[in-house]
């Protein structure tokens, strides 16, 4: 059993604070992904959990032990590094067995465990090769094998796939997911790739400037982003974030896009939002479509806009349209007719999937979301 919990964890490098009051509870066998832009403190946090970096404040617990002052070797963790960090003078077999050898396990047990991990990862044919004689993808597998073999309480991954090409990355992503099904262990996985985060995580921790911006399931961070930052970070293409203003309307309050449409606010969701307030309106590209090819919507709202550019991507197309002064992206699946730049096209968007953020703080204003109801 290995829950991991971080209490008010702080990391300072001299005068610079890299991690601020980090609070998180990770359940046994949970797959948690830290995601965020470069320099937001993901690696630092992970390395503090590993014991490779001192903790400037707070407490880290693995299982029922406070590990603040334990060296890495006593934390019963394994880690896969971005650059793999394979021991170059050892064969694939020796690399994988090294941890068990250090632990003084009997030879036949090491042999058995290395064989099992190599089987899982398709490394059987390379066991007596040195890392230099392996491809990037194979090295990556050896690094994972080395981590698995030791049966740790917690797996730590620091951007394990970022050195692979796009195709291999997708493949390995699936394999890691399958592997976690087979080798159930608590996993903490760092990436700056939101697709990896969405596909792998039980829960995502979105970080920014050394702070947690939001913790939630992939669904939650996608459908109910806690802030404008999360909204812009999760999802590809990113959510349209439009500077707008609330205005009084006949049946309550509406959002007015400068030079563009005025969208009514659902009073059951936005009853706390008064008129005449600067806001950021958030619309996912997926929830905007030309009227003639729009799918079913909960609360459709129609407006007219100019299509300025079309990017066909095969099964889908990206449309760039002018909504008042704002340039907005729409993502259309299986477009039924050829799309071309065009003036005054009727569009639909789903008000039930509308997001509203405070213009200054970026904090989410939706009291509840269509997704939750």
């Amino acid at each position: 059993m290995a829950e991991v919990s971080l209490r008010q964890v702080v990391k300072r490098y001299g005068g610079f604070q890299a991690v601020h009051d980090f609070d998180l509870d990770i359940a046994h066998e949970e797959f948690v992904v830290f995601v965020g832009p470069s320099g937001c403190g993901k690696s630092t946090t992970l390395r503090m959990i590993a014991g490779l970096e001192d903790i400037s404040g707070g407490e880290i617990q693995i299982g029922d032990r406070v590990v603040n002052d334990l060296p890495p070797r006593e934390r019963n963790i394994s880690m896969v590094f971005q650059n793999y960090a394979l021991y170059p003078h050892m064969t694939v077999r020796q690399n994988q067995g090294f941890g068990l050898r250090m632990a003084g396990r009997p030879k036949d047990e090491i042999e058995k465990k290395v064989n099992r991990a190599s089987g899982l990862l398709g490394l059987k044919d390379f066991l007596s090769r040195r890392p230099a004689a392996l491809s990037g993808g194979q090295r990556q597998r050896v690094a994972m094998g080395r981590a698995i073999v030791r049966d740790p309480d917690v797996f730590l991954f620091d951007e394990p796939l970022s050195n692979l090409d796009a195709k291999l990355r997708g493949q390995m992503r699936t394999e890691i997911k399958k592997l976690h099904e087979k080798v159930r262990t608590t996993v903490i996985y760092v990436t700056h790739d939101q697709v990896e985060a969405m596909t792998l995580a039980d829960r995502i921790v979105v970080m920014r400037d050394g702070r947690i911006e939001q913790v939630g399931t992939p669904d939650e961070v996608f459908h109910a982003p806690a802030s404008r930052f999360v909204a812009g970070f999760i999802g590809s293409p990113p959510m349209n974030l439009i500077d707008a203003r609330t205005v009084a309307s006949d049946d309550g309050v509406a959002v007015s896009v400068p030079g563009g449409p005025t969208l009514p606010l659902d009073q059951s969701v936005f009853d706390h939002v008064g008129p005449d307030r600067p806001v950021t309106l958030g619309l996912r590209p997926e929830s905007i479509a030309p009227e003639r090819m729009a799918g079913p919507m909960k609360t459709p709202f129609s407006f007219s806009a100019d299509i300025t550019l079309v990017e066909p991507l095969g099964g889908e197309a990206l449309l760039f349209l002018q909504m008042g002064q704002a340039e907005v992206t729409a993502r259309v699946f299986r477009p039924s007719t050829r799309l071309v730049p065009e003036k005054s096209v009727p569009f639909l968007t789903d008000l039930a999937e509308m997001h509203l953020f405070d213009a200054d703080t970026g904090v989410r204003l939706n009291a509840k979301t269509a997704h939750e109801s």
Partner: protein
Amino acid sequence: MKSITGAALWLVRLAYLAFALFPLFWLIRISLTPDDLLYSEGTTIWPSSLTLANFAYVIEESPFPVFFGNTVIVSLGTAAAVTVLAAGIGYAFSRFEFAGKRTLMVFLVITQLFPLVMVITPLYQLLAPIGLVNTRIGLIVVFTAFNLPFAAFLMHSFYEGIPRELEQAAMIDGCTRFQALIRIILPLMLPGIGATLGFVFTAAWSELLFSLMLITSETKKTFAVGLLSFVGKSGVDWGQMMAAATLALIPPAIFFTFIQKYLVGGLTAGAVKA
């Protein structure tokens, strides 16, 4: 175009090789030339007859074998001492942060700037009271002191070439820092250790200045000092001197043959994504 560039490159390489090897060739040529032909034939590429007399004299009659022995002891001792110390210092500089680290490194560089002649007298006065003048140990101590800064920098740069993640992975895999050093880092440091050994051995092997000043007794002289004994009042015995010098080339050659496989880089290849 390509072949012209290739040919030009080869020409440059050959020219360099000739430049580097000619002194060696001349050394051997003179050591094999009979004394009476040395001046009478003038400067020819090859003498009309050869002799081993110079070598025979150096080995059998001169005190050179003793000088060689001394030089081997001093050079090996220095190389070993410097390498062990530099391995520790380089590691500390590369992997640890400590107060005054930068200052210390700058200080080490500065020590390399002073001409060595400056310190001979103070050094003599320092060593004399503790009985290290005119001893081989004394030479080893002095050579070690003078070679250590550069060797430490050399080692430091080799450590810097080894990704920190390797020892971190080892420490997660159950090693203490020391175990990680011994089991992971040291095997990868062999090229660095080889380079340092080679560099220091050669430097100590051909050192003249301090050997000349600190060694007075005939039985403790090193060969570089010994070579000077061929410069007599009546002139220089070139043949014998060159024979001794040729023999002196052998130990470093053997030494380098020994360590050359470690000098070849690329041992860390495959540790990390290039």
